[in-house]
């Protein structure tokens, strides 16, 4: 179960994701942004960080790099793709998931543990949770406020993956903080499952994101 972790200049959660994938039983390896052929991999994770210094908009420059052609191929082949934090911003900028993650309503960088509700279990990443299960994972971002002018469509098509369960710290529309594409195989979430994958970190709730992904392979 080979899983590729994409690295851009400025990615900084790549090693955490590597560790979490190993804990979940996968075989992760790193891929640099200038690669185009990802056919060796069964799944792709785009980790968090500040690719290209968040210039233009968070994720905007990573979204036009050669590796995105490879990611689009993976999507076509119906293999799972998970974007975490900056990875989620990148997937939204590419248009692989609907909407955008933009400046937090209080204009601050927010780094804290949050309670989240799992809104659908039809994605591989959420298949091991219960519908509406409340889980604990941290967020760490300045541009995470979800916005989409077609929220109704998103709901009708069951594309909301995660929502803040209590407080809505960044002002996201309807507290949404994770969305997927139509078939549920491309998933973009602002919270960090890799930072909630070992007891010593304070929660193991995030590990099932990776286990679920590997189980479907």
């Amino acid at each position, binding site marked *: 179960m080979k899983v590729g972790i994409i690295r851009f200049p400025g990615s900084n959660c790549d090693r955490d994701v590597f560790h979490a994938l190993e804990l979940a039983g996968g075989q992760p390896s790193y891929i640099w942004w200038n690669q185009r052929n990802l056919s060796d991999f069964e799944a792709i994770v785009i980790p968090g960080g500040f690719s290209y210094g968040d210039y*233009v*908009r968070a994720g*905007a*420059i990573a979204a*036009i790099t050669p590796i995105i052609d490879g990611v689009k191929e993976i999507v076509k082949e119906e293999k799972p793709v998970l974007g975490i934090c900056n990875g989620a911003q990148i997937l939204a*900028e590419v248009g692989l998931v609907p*909407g*955008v993650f*933009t*400046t*937090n*309503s*209080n*204009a601050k960088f927010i780094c804290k543990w949050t309670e989240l509700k799992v809104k659908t279990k039809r994605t591989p990443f959420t298949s091991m949770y219960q519908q509406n299960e409340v889980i604990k994972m941290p967020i760490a971002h300045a541009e995470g*406020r979800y*916005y*989409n*002018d077609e929220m109704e469509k998103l709901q009708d098509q069951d594309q909301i993956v995660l929502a803040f369960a209590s407080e809505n710290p960044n*002002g996201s529309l309807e507290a949404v903080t994770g969305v997927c594409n139509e078939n549920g195989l491309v998933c973009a979430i602002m919270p960090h499952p890799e930072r909630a994958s070992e007891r010593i970190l304070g929660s193991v709730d995030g590990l099932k994101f990776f286990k679920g992904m590997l189980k479907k392979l």
Partner: protein
Amino acid sequence: MKYYAEVKISLKKGMLNPEAATIQRALSLLEYQVENTKTIQIIKFSLTGENEKNIHEEVDEMCQRLLCNPVIHNYEIKITPQLKDE
């Protein structure tokens, strides 16, 4: 022929602008009471092309592919010919 291009990027009407809200609150700390604060980003560059129309089309493509996000942004493009002695 060389041209100057200026792209003015603003948030769509009704979009929350946390930066502008923060600036407005800071101004009120200095006891300036202002309303409707907005921030607009301007990106400028020069480029070569056949005519103004072609340049405009090219810059419009840049806006759609990188400079703006159509979900939240409006943009305006201004193209002016670059004079020889500039």
